[in-house]
Protein backbone atom coordinates (compact mmCIF):
# COMPACT_ATOMS: atom_id res chain seq x y z
CA UNK A 1 0.00 0.00 0.00
CA UNK A 2 2.89 2.34 -0.71
CA UNK A 3 2.18 2.90 -4.41
CA UNK A 4 2.35 6.73 -4.76
CA UNK A 5 -0.30 6.81 -7.51
CA UNK A 6 -2.79 4.96 -5.32
CA UNK A 7 -2.01 7.24 -2.38
CA UNK A 8 -2.57 10.34 -4.53
CA UNK A 9 -5.84 8.93 -5.88
CA UNK A 10 -6.95 8.11 -2.34
CA UNK A 11 -6.14 11.64 -1.26
CA UNK A 12 -7.99 13.23 -4.16
CA UNK A 13 -11.03 11.04 -3.52
CA UNK A 14 -11.82 13.49 -0.72
CA UNK A 15 -11.80 16.47 -3.10
CA UNK A 16 -9.46 18.58 -5.16
CA UNK A 17 -6.04 19.34 -3.64
CA UNK A 18 -2.74 20.91 -4.64
CA UNK A 19 0.61 19.17 -4.25
CA UNK A 20 1.46 20.35 -0.74
CA UNK A 21 -2.02 19.48 0.53
CA UNK A 22 -1.70 15.98 -0.97
CA UNK A 23 1.65 15.46 0.81
CA UNK A 24 0.16 16.52 4.14
CA UNK A 25 -2.98 14.42 3.65
CA UNK A 26 -1.06 11.27 2.68
CA UNK A 27 1.22 11.75 5.67
CA UNK A 28 -1.86 11.97 7.90
CA UNK A 29 -3.83 8.95 6.66
CA UNK A 30 -1.00 6.62 5.51
CA UNK A 31 1.93 7.89 7.62
CA UNK A 32 4.01 8.05 4.45
CA UNK A 33 5.80 11.22 3.44
CA UNK A 34 5.80 11.57 -0.32
CA UNK A 35 8.87 13.39 -1.62
CA UNK A 36 8.25 16.18 -4.15
CA UNK A 37 9.86 14.16 -6.96
CA UNK A 38 7.78 11.09 -6.13
CA UNK A 39 4.57 13.13 -5.90
CA UNK A 40 5.03 14.82 -9.24
CA UNK A 41 6.12 11.56 -10.86
CA UNK A 42 2.78 10.12 -9.73
CA UNK A 43 0.83 13.25 -10.77
CA UNK A 44 2.43 13.13 -14.25
CA UNK A 45 1.50 9.50 -14.72
CA UNK A 46 -2.02 9.91 -13.37
CA UNK A 47 -2.69 12.88 -15.63
CA UNK A 48 -1.30 11.01 -18.67
CA UNK A 49 -3.73 8.18 -17.94
CA UNK A 50 -6.62 10.58 -17.53
CA UNK A 51 -7.24 9.60 -13.90
CA UNK A 52 -6.77 13.13 -12.56
CA UNK A 53 -7.06 16.61 -14.09
CA UNK A 54 -5.82 20.07 -13.15
CA UNK A 55 -8.51 22.47 -12.00
CA UNK A 56 -8.62 26.27 -11.98
CA UNK A 57 -6.42 27.76 -9.25
CA UNK A 58 -6.87 30.90 -7.13
CA UNK A 59 -3.16 31.22 -6.42
CA UNK A 60 0.13 29.85 -7.80
CA UNK A 61 -0.57 26.39 -6.40
CA UNK A 62 -2.10 24.00 -8.94
CA UNK A 63 -4.91 21.82 -7.56
CA UNK A 64 -5.90 18.49 -9.08
CA UNK A 65 -9.17 16.60 -9.05
CA UNK A 66 -10.12 12.98 -9.62
CA UNK A 67 -11.76 12.22 -12.99
CA UNK A 68 -14.58 9.70 -13.43
CA UNK A 69 -12.03 7.28 -14.93
CA UNK A 70 -9.73 7.82 -11.96
CA UNK A 71 -12.57 7.22 -9.50
CA UNK A 72 -13.44 3.95 -11.29
CA UNK A 73 -9.81 2.82 -11.20
CA UNK A 74 -9.53 3.69 -7.51
CA UNK A 75 -12.70 1.74 -6.74
CA UNK A 76 -11.32 -1.31 -8.55
CA UNK A 77 -8.01 -1.05 -6.73
CA UNK A 78 -9.70 -0.67 -3.37
CA UNK A 79 -11.95 -3.66 -4.10
CA UNK A 80 -8.90 -5.75 -4.96
CA UNK A 81 -7.07 -4.64 -1.83
CA UNK A 82 -10.16 -5.33 0.23
CA UNK A 83 -10.35 -8.88 -1.12
CA UNK A 84 -6.70 -9.46 -0.25
CA UNK A 85 -7.16 -8.02 3.24
CA UNK A 86 -10.32 -10.06 3.90
CA UNK A 87 -8.57 -13.25 2.76
CA UNK A 88 -5.53 -12.51 4.91
CA UNK A 89 -7.71 -11.76 7.94
CA UNK A 90 -9.72 -14.96 7.53
CA UNK A 91 -6.60 -17.05 7.17
CA UNK A 92 -5.02 -15.44 10.20
CA UNK A 93 -8.11 -16.22 12.24
CA UNK A 94 -8.04 -19.89 11.24
CA UNK A 95 -4.28 -20.31 11.48
Amino acid at each position, binding site marked *: MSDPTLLVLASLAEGEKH*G*YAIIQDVQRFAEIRLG*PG*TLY*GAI*TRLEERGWIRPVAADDRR*QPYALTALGRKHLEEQVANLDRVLQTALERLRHA
Partner: protein
Amino acid sequence: MRGLARWAVRLYPAAWRARYGREFEVLLEDIGPGWRDLRNVVWGALKMQISSLSFGKATAALAIAGALVAGFVGVSMRNVYQSTAVAVLTPVWTPQMDRREANLAMAGRLERLRVGALSRPALADIINRLGLYQKLRERYTLEDAVAQMQKDVRILPIDGDQTGERHYAMAFLLRFEYPDRFQAQRVTAELMSRLMAAQVQDGRVATASLEVLDPASLPPAPSSPNRWAILFVGVTLGVFSAIAFFGARHWPIAGVCAETGALAGALLAIVTRTHNPWPIVIFGLVCGVLASPAAVLIHRRLTRLGH
Protein backbone atom coordinates in the same frame (compact mmCIF):
# COMPACT_ATOMS: atom_id res chain seq x y z
CA MET B 1 18.88 24.32 0.04
CA ARG B 2 15.89 25.91 -1.66
CA GLY B 3 18.18 27.28 -4.35
CA LEU B 4 19.75 23.86 -4.84
CA ALA B 5 16.35 22.22 -5.14
CA ARG B 6 15.25 24.86 -7.64
CA TRP B 7 18.40 24.17 -9.63
CA ALA B 8 17.65 20.42 -9.50
CA VAL B 9 14.31 21.11 -11.22
CA ARG B 10 16.39 21.93 -14.32
CA LEU B 11 17.39 18.27 -14.44
CA TYR B 12 13.85 17.37 -15.52
CA PRO B 13 13.11 17.12 -19.26
CA ALA B 14 12.30 20.49 -20.87
CA ALA B 15 8.82 19.36 -21.95
CA TRP B 16 8.01 18.28 -18.40
CA ARG B 17 9.31 21.57 -16.98
CA ALA B 18 7.16 23.52 -19.42
CA ARG B 19 4.06 21.73 -18.10
CA TYR B 20 4.82 21.21 -14.39
CA GLY B 21 7.88 23.38 -13.67
CA ARG B 22 6.16 26.39 -12.16
CA GLU B 23 3.81 24.47 -9.85
CA PHE B 24 6.66 22.15 -8.85
CA GLU B 25 8.76 25.12 -7.76
CA VAL B 26 5.80 26.44 -5.76
CA LEU B 27 5.57 23.05 -4.04
CA LEU B 28 9.28 23.19 -3.21
CA GLU B 29 8.77 26.66 -1.67
CA ASP B 30 5.88 25.25 0.41
CA ILE B 31 7.71 22.25 1.80
CA GLY B 32 11.07 24.00 2.48
CA PRO B 33 13.16 21.12 1.05
CA GLY B 34 15.84 19.32 3.05
CA TRP B 35 18.57 16.99 1.80
CA ARG B 36 16.12 14.13 1.58
CA ASP B 37 13.82 16.18 -0.63
CA LEU B 38 16.71 17.31 -2.79
CA ARG B 39 17.72 13.69 -3.31
CA ASN B 40 14.11 12.84 -4.11
CA VAL B 41 13.92 15.65 -6.69
CA VAL B 42 17.17 14.54 -8.38
CA TRP B 43 16.02 10.91 -8.40
CA GLY B 44 12.62 11.96 -9.77
CA ALA B 45 14.36 13.93 -12.53
CA LEU B 46 16.47 10.91 -13.45
CA LYS B 47 13.39 8.69 -13.63
CA MET B 48 11.55 11.27 -15.70
CA GLN B 49 14.49 11.55 -18.09
CA ILE B 50 14.55 7.76 -18.53
CA SER B 51 10.82 7.58 -19.19
CA SER B 52 10.88 10.44 -21.70
CA LEU B 53 13.88 9.20 -23.70
CA SER B 54 13.23 8.44 -27.35
CA PHE B 55 14.63 5.24 -28.84
CA GLY B 56 17.38 7.14 -30.66
CA LYS B 57 18.46 9.10 -27.59
CA ALA B 58 18.31 6.03 -25.35
CA THR B 59 20.38 4.04 -27.85
CA ALA B 60 22.96 6.82 -28.05
CA ALA B 61 23.04 7.21 -24.25
CA LEU B 62 23.40 3.48 -23.61
CA ALA B 63 26.03 3.15 -26.36
CA ILE B 64 28.03 5.97 -24.75
CA ALA B 65 27.56 4.38 -21.31
CA GLY B 66 28.72 1.04 -22.73
CA ALA B 67 31.74 2.73 -24.30
CA LEU B 68 32.62 4.44 -21.01
CA VAL B 69 32.35 1.21 -19.01
CA ALA B 70 34.33 -0.67 -21.68
CA GLY B 71 36.92 2.11 -21.72
CA PHE B 72 37.29 1.90 -17.97
CA VAL B 73 37.58 -1.89 -18.10
CA GLY B 74 40.08 -1.69 -20.97
CA VAL B 75 42.25 0.89 -19.22
CA SER B 76 42.19 -0.98 -15.92
CA MET B 77 43.37 -4.22 -17.57
CA ARG B 78 47.14 -4.62 -17.63
CA ASN B 79 49.04 -5.14 -20.86
CA VAL B 80 50.27 -8.63 -21.59
CA TYR B 81 53.13 -9.29 -24.00
CA GLN B 82 53.67 -12.51 -25.88
CA SER B 83 57.18 -13.65 -26.70
CA THR B 84 57.49 -16.60 -29.05
CA ALA B 85 60.21 -18.90 -30.31
CA VAL B 86 59.98 -21.62 -32.96
CA ALA B 87 61.94 -24.85 -32.97
CA VAL B 88 61.78 -28.07 -34.92
CA LEU B 89 62.25 -31.67 -33.84
CA THR B 90 63.60 -33.72 -36.73
CA PRO B 91 63.80 -37.51 -36.53
CA VAL B 92 66.87 -39.23 -37.88
CA TRP B 93 65.65 -40.48 -41.25
CA THR B 94 65.47 -44.19 -42.01
CA PRO B 95 63.98 -45.56 -45.26
CA GLN B 96 61.60 -47.89 -43.45
CA MET B 97 60.18 -45.04 -41.41
CA ASP B 98 56.41 -44.70 -41.65
CA ARG B 99 54.81 -41.21 -41.43
CA ARG B 100 52.31 -42.16 -38.71
CA GLU B 101 54.97 -43.79 -36.54
CA ALA B 102 57.29 -40.82 -37.02
CA ASN B 103 54.53 -38.38 -36.06
CA LEU B 104 53.71 -40.35 -32.94
CA ALA B 105 57.37 -40.63 -32.02
CA MET B 106 57.93 -36.87 -32.43
CA ALA B 107 54.77 -36.02 -30.49
CA GLY B 108 55.94 -38.30 -27.69
CA ARG B 109 59.39 -36.76 -27.76
CA LEU B 110 57.96 -33.24 -27.61
CA GLU B 111 55.73 -34.20 -24.69
CA ARG B 112 58.71 -35.61 -22.77
CA LEU B 113 60.68 -32.43 -23.42
CA ARG B 114 57.72 -30.31 -22.37
CA VAL B 115 57.24 -32.22 -19.11
CA GLY B 116 60.94 -31.93 -18.30
CA ALA B 117 61.31 -28.24 -19.14
CA LEU B 118 58.06 -27.13 -17.53
CA SER B 119 58.38 -29.22 -14.40
CA ARG B 120 57.60 -27.56 -11.12
CA PRO B 121 61.27 -27.32 -9.92
CA ALA B 122 62.36 -25.94 -13.32
CA LEU B 123 59.69 -23.21 -13.33
CA ALA B 124 60.25 -22.40 -9.64
CA ASP B 125 63.95 -21.92 -10.42
CA ILE B 126 63.16 -19.52 -13.30
CA ILE B 127 60.67 -17.60 -11.16
CA ASN B 128 63.24 -17.16 -8.38
CA ARG B 129 66.14 -16.27 -10.63
CA LEU B 130 64.29 -13.76 -12.84
CA GLY B 131 62.06 -12.40 -10.05
CA LEU B 132 58.80 -13.18 -11.85
CA TYR B 133 55.24 -12.74 -10.52
CA GLN B 134 56.30 -10.38 -7.72
CA LYS B 135 52.76 -9.12 -6.98
CA LEU B 136 51.33 -12.62 -7.01
CA ARG B 137 54.05 -13.81 -4.67
CA GLU B 138 53.38 -10.97 -2.22
CA ARG B 139 49.95 -12.50 -1.58
CA TYR B 140 50.34 -16.15 -2.47
CA THR B 141 52.92 -18.93 -2.39
CA LEU B 142 55.56 -19.95 -4.88
CA GLU B 143 53.32 -22.88 -5.80
CA ASP B 144 50.65 -20.43 -7.00
CA ALA B 145 53.23 -18.58 -9.08
CA VAL B 146 54.34 -21.87 -10.65
CA ALA B 147 50.71 -22.76 -11.40
CA GLN B 148 50.24 -19.34 -13.03
CA MET B 149 53.40 -19.76 -15.08
CA GLN B 150 52.25 -23.17 -16.29
CA LYS B 151 49.16 -21.38 -17.66
CA ASP B 152 51.26 -18.64 -19.26
CA VAL B 153 53.58 -21.02 -21.11
CA ARG B 154 52.29 -22.78 -24.21
CA ILE B 155 53.99 -25.27 -26.50
CA LEU B 156 51.95 -25.59 -29.65
CA PRO B 157 52.73 -27.91 -32.57
CA ILE B 158 52.87 -26.10 -35.89
CA ASP B 159 51.37 -27.42 -39.09
CA GLY B 160 53.81 -29.73 -40.93
CA ASP B 161 53.83 -27.47 -44.00
CA GLN B 162 56.02 -25.01 -42.17
CA THR B 163 58.82 -27.52 -41.71
CA GLY B 164 59.63 -27.46 -45.38
CA GLU B 165 61.43 -30.43 -46.86
CA ARG B 166 62.43 -32.01 -43.56
CA HIS B 167 61.29 -35.63 -43.31
CA TYR B 168 58.47 -35.95 -40.77
CA ALA B 169 59.81 -33.11 -38.69
CA MET B 170 57.62 -31.58 -36.02
CA ALA B 171 57.87 -27.83 -35.61
CA PHE B 172 56.47 -26.20 -32.51
CA LEU B 173 55.93 -22.79 -31.12
CA LEU B 174 56.99 -21.90 -27.59
CA ARG B 175 55.00 -18.96 -26.24
CA PHE B 176 55.16 -17.11 -22.95
CA GLU B 177 52.85 -14.29 -21.83
CA TYR B 178 53.91 -11.72 -19.26
CA PRO B 179 53.19 -8.05 -18.42
CA ASP B 180 56.87 -7.08 -18.98
CA ARG B 181 57.96 -7.58 -22.59
CA PHE B 182 61.69 -7.90 -21.76
CA GLN B 183 60.97 -10.49 -19.10
CA ALA B 184 58.69 -12.29 -21.55
CA GLN B 185 61.57 -12.54 -24.02
CA ARG B 186 64.06 -13.56 -21.32
CA VAL B 187 61.80 -16.35 -20.05
CA THR B 188 61.06 -17.65 -23.55
CA ALA B 189 64.79 -17.82 -24.30
CA GLU B 190 65.42 -19.55 -20.97
CA LEU B 191 62.66 -22.09 -21.59
CA MET B 192 63.95 -22.81 -25.08
CA SER B 193 67.47 -23.43 -23.79
CA ARG B 194 66.00 -25.76 -21.18
CA LEU B 195 64.20 -27.67 -23.93
CA MET B 196 67.52 -27.94 -25.78
CA ALA B 197 69.26 -29.16 -22.64
CA ALA B 198 66.50 -31.70 -22.02
CA GLN B 199 66.87 -32.96 -25.60
CA VAL B 200 70.61 -33.41 -25.15
CA GLN B 201 70.08 -35.28 -21.87
CA ASP B 202 67.43 -37.54 -23.41
CA GLY B 203 68.77 -41.03 -23.87
CA ARG B 204 67.22 -41.31 -27.33
CA VAL B 205 69.15 -38.30 -28.64
CA ALA B 206 70.34 -40.24 -31.64
CA THR B 207 66.82 -40.62 -33.05
CA ALA B 208 65.99 -36.92 -33.36
CA SER B 209 67.51 -33.47 -33.30
CA LEU B 210 66.13 -30.21 -31.96
CA GLU B 211 66.90 -27.01 -33.80
CA VAL B 212 65.78 -23.46 -33.05
CA LEU B 213 64.33 -21.81 -36.15
CA ASP B 214 63.29 -18.50 -34.56
CA PRO B 215 64.83 -17.33 -31.28
CA ALA B 216 62.74 -15.73 -28.53
CA SER B 217 61.11 -12.57 -29.90
CA LEU B 218 60.92 -9.21 -28.17
CA PRO B 219 57.22 -8.36 -28.49
CA PRO B 220 56.84 -4.83 -29.90
CA ALA B 221 53.24 -4.37 -28.70
CA PRO B 222 50.96 -5.98 -26.13
CA SER B 223 49.03 -9.00 -27.35
CA SER B 224 46.17 -8.33 -24.99
CA PRO B 225 43.89 -6.79 -23.97
CA ASN B 226 42.38 -5.90 -27.32
CA ARG B 227 40.94 -2.55 -26.24
CA TRP B 228 39.18 -1.91 -29.54
CA ALA B 229 37.36 -5.23 -29.24
CA ILE B 230 36.38 -4.40 -25.64
CA LEU B 231 35.12 -0.98 -26.74
CA PHE B 232 33.19 -2.55 -29.59
CA VAL B 233 31.59 -5.08 -27.22
CA GLY B 234 30.69 -2.27 -24.75
CA VAL B 235 29.04 -0.12 -27.42
CA THR B 236 27.22 -3.08 -28.95
CA LEU B 237 25.92 -4.24 -25.58
CA GLY B 238 24.69 -0.68 -24.95
CA VAL B 239 22.80 -0.73 -28.25
CA PHE B 240 21.41 -4.21 -27.51
CA SER B 241 20.24 -3.01 -24.09
CA ALA B 242 18.35 -0.14 -25.75
CA ILE B 243 16.79 -2.54 -28.25
CA ALA B 244 15.85 -4.95 -25.46
CA PHE B 245 14.41 -2.20 -23.25
CA PHE B 246 12.37 -0.50 -25.94
CA GLY B 247 11.48 -3.74 -27.69
CA ALA B 248 10.09 -5.05 -24.43
CA ARG B 249 7.57 -2.23 -24.42
CA HIS B 250 6.05 -3.48 -27.64
CA TRP B 251 6.93 -7.15 -28.09
CA PRO B 252 6.60 -10.23 -25.89
CA ILE B 253 9.51 -10.26 -23.51
CA ALA B 254 10.70 -13.76 -24.43
CA GLY B 255 11.07 -12.71 -28.05
CA VAL B 256 13.17 -9.73 -27.08
CA CYS B 257 15.35 -11.84 -24.78
CA ALA B 258 15.82 -14.49 -27.46
CA GLU B 259 16.73 -11.80 -29.98
CA THR B 260 19.20 -10.20 -27.58
CA GLY B 261 20.73 -13.58 -26.69
CA ALA B 262 21.10 -14.54 -30.34
CA LEU B 263 22.66 -11.18 -31.21
CA ALA B 264 25.04 -11.44 -28.24
CA GLY B 265 25.96 -14.97 -29.39
CA ALA B 266 26.60 -13.70 -32.92
CA LEU B 267 28.74 -10.89 -31.53
CA LEU B 268 30.73 -13.35 -29.41
CA ALA B 269 31.23 -15.56 -32.44
CA ILE B 270 32.56 -12.57 -34.42
CA VAL B 271 34.88 -11.43 -31.64
CA THR B 272 36.26 -14.93 -31.01
CA ARG B 273 36.46 -15.62 -34.78
CA THR B 274 34.81 -18.99 -34.34
CA HIS B 275 34.68 -21.11 -37.47
CA ASN B 276 31.18 -22.40 -36.73
CA PRO B 277 29.17 -19.60 -35.09
CA TRP B 278 25.79 -21.41 -35.01
CA PRO B 279 26.25 -23.30 -31.71
CA ILE B 280 27.13 -20.00 -29.98
CA VAL B 281 24.19 -18.17 -31.61
CA ILE B 282 21.77 -20.95 -30.64
CA PHE B 283 23.26 -21.09 -27.14
CA GLY B 284 22.71 -17.30 -26.86
CA LEU B 285 19.14 -17.73 -28.08
CA VAL B 286 18.40 -20.45 -25.51
CA CYS B 287 20.05 -18.39 -22.74
CA GLY B 288 17.91 -15.42 -23.81
CA VAL B 289 14.71 -17.44 -23.53
CA LEU B 290 15.78 -18.94 -20.19
CA ALA B 291 16.64 -15.47 -18.88
CA SER B 292 13.28 -14.01 -19.92
CA PRO B 293 11.60 -14.42 -16.47
CA ALA B 294 14.40 -12.38 -14.88
CA ALA B 295 14.15 -9.89 -17.75
CA VAL B 296 10.41 -9.49 -17.10
CA LEU B 297 11.15 -8.61 -13.46
CA ILE B 298 13.90 -6.14 -14.45
CA HIS B 299 11.67 -4.59 -17.10
CA ARG B 300 8.83 -4.16 -14.62
CA ARG B 301 11.20 -2.53 -12.16
CA LEU B 302 12.63 -0.21 -14.82
CA THR B 303 9.16 0.69 -16.04
CA ARG B 304 8.16 1.56 -12.49
CA LEU B 305 11.41 3.53 -12.17
CA GLY B 306 10.55 5.33 -15.38
CA HIS B 307 7.39 6.64 -13.84
